[in-house]
């Protein structure tokens, strides 16, 4: 469905100068600073997949999504979305794609929510009957009724996000790009957004690319993740493979020796062992030789694994 190959985007902006006449020099300069936001990224995404597209701030996630929607033209590389080149077949591509940018809204601030939805209906040539049917479904699914006639600027963040989700899926696109759709939401609102994504993916076989900084989103929604940093892909594969590691036993020993059974002391003075086989026996044999002050067992979790990958 989506095939990205060697995608690279270099931003070029005039160098800024400081000091007296700095602004003027900035204006007339021919010197440019270059910033590689996306660097040789390749991946394939199949129909109906929900992909977590993750990375720290400034990794290049939003830039990738802007290229996939056809708004930005890449510096190098090829992209095919349903066989279309997004930035060349912009209009055809746009009809098949829904976008949410959690940081900003596609809703018209001063008008009631329903007007922005009507606008979307007309921009995507929806016949009245189809519009009404789709709206009806979304009203139930997202609970829009209580604020459909409220100007968007008066909505809470959670309500606004629901409105934005509705606007993105109103014309039933087979592909959804969700850039931080849960940013700033409380636990319940996040839960509602997640349920909506699951539902949309399930009933419409909608393919979803999701970027988020909340790994709970990823755990709830994605089977596969693509991790990027500094514009480069660090990992691409199923979450299971990433977290498929042994549980770990963490002990703090009274005497804090340099090394215990081939495991050296970490910077917090602890020893961390991978757990294989019989855990009670393992603890017993350690306590036979050392006095244990504290002890805990760590499940492998996405957050620590991802932290580990970023740190590399």
């Amino acid at each position: 469905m989506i095939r990205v190959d060697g995608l690279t985007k270099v931003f070029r902006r005039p160098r800024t100068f400081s000091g007296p006449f700095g602004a003027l020099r900035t204006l007339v300069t021919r010197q440019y600073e270059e910033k590689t936001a996306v660097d040789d990224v390749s991946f394939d995404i199949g129909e109906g997949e929900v992909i977590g597209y993750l990375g720290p701030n400034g990794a290049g996630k939003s830039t990738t999504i802007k290229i996939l929607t056809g708004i930005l033209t890449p510096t190098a590389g090829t992209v095919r979305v349903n066989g279309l080149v997004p930035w060349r077949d912009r209009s055809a591509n746009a009809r098949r794609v829904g976008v949410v940018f959690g940081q900003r809204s596609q809703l018209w601030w001063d008008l009631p929510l329903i007007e922005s939805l009507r606008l979307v209906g007309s921009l995507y040539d929806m016949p009245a009957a189809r519009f009404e049917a789709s709206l009806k479904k979304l009203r139930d699914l997202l609970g829009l009724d209580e604020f459909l006639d409220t100007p968007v600027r008066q909505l809470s963040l959670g309500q606004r996000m629901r409105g934005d989700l509705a606007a993105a899926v109103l014309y039933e696109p087979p592909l959804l790009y969700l850039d931080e759709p849960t940013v700033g939401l409380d636990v319940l609102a996040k839960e509602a957004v997640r349920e909506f994504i699951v539902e949309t993916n399930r009933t419409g076989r909608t393919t979803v690319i999701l970027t988020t900084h909340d790994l709970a989103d990823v755990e709830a929604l994605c089977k596969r993740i693509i991790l990027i940093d500094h514009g480069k892909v660090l990992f691409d594969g199923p979450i299971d493979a990433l977290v498929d590691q042994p549980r770990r036993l963490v002990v703090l020993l009274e005497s804090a020796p340099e090394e215990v059974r081939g495991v050296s002391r970490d910077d917090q003075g602890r020893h961390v062992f991978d757990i294989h086989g019989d855990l009670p026996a393992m603890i017993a044999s350690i306590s036979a030789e050392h006095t244990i002050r504290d002890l805990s067992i760590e499940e492998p979790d996405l957050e620590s694994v991802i932290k580990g990958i970023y740190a590399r």
Partner: protein
Amino acid sequence: MTRVGFLFALAYRSSIVMTCVTLVAQVFLLRMIWTAVYGSRAEAAGLTLEALLAYLTLANLQSFATQTLVSRVIHHRIRSGTVFFDLARPIGYLRQMAAFQAGNTAGSLLLLAPVVPVVLLVGSITAPVNGPGYVVTLVLGYVIAVQLALLISLLGFWMLEIGAVSLLYQLVSQFFAGTMVPLAFFPGFLGTLAEVLPFKYMGYVPAAIYVGHISDISGPLLVELAWVAGLWALLALAWSRTHRRVVIQGG
């Protein structure tokens, strides 16, 4: 999008009402000043006082009607990054923005309607000498105004800060439209400049046709059509160049 533009005008009705008040005040002041200037003279530059007052009243009404909000909206949407969504639509960007402006103008006219009698009363009006000619040239003048506004707005994709430019544009276009002083009174070089610039089609030309100061409309009409066609081509060219280097703020 037309609908959104229309609702936008209604949502901002208080600012439009303020503009209406300004309009009434301005027409009133212009009437006082020009009546004093004429004194006992019957006519100047081929215009009777009666025709001149009708001209000024009309020109000011027109200048209000052909005002465009679209550059401000575009500017705001570029700066906030919400222009992303406009560009992600299956319909051309300029088409969306033109539709917005058309709706917005319709909304403003609706709000203006009750004020028209007041303006006519404060100012002065005569029966049209050439009604159809007036309407046709005014509509084309409006099209030119929207095209120019869109062209200015495209600068925003290149500079990100166009507040000063659009303010300057507004001043220049108002002045050369002849809403304060009919172009017939512009001296020498200024007159020539006003003559070649397109702004006169938003104010002076239609109003002068209305009061019969211009009797042969075929000339202005042809030039207007040429402007519309030329600006159309220029917009298409400018947009295709702008398009390629679009940068959306923030992520």
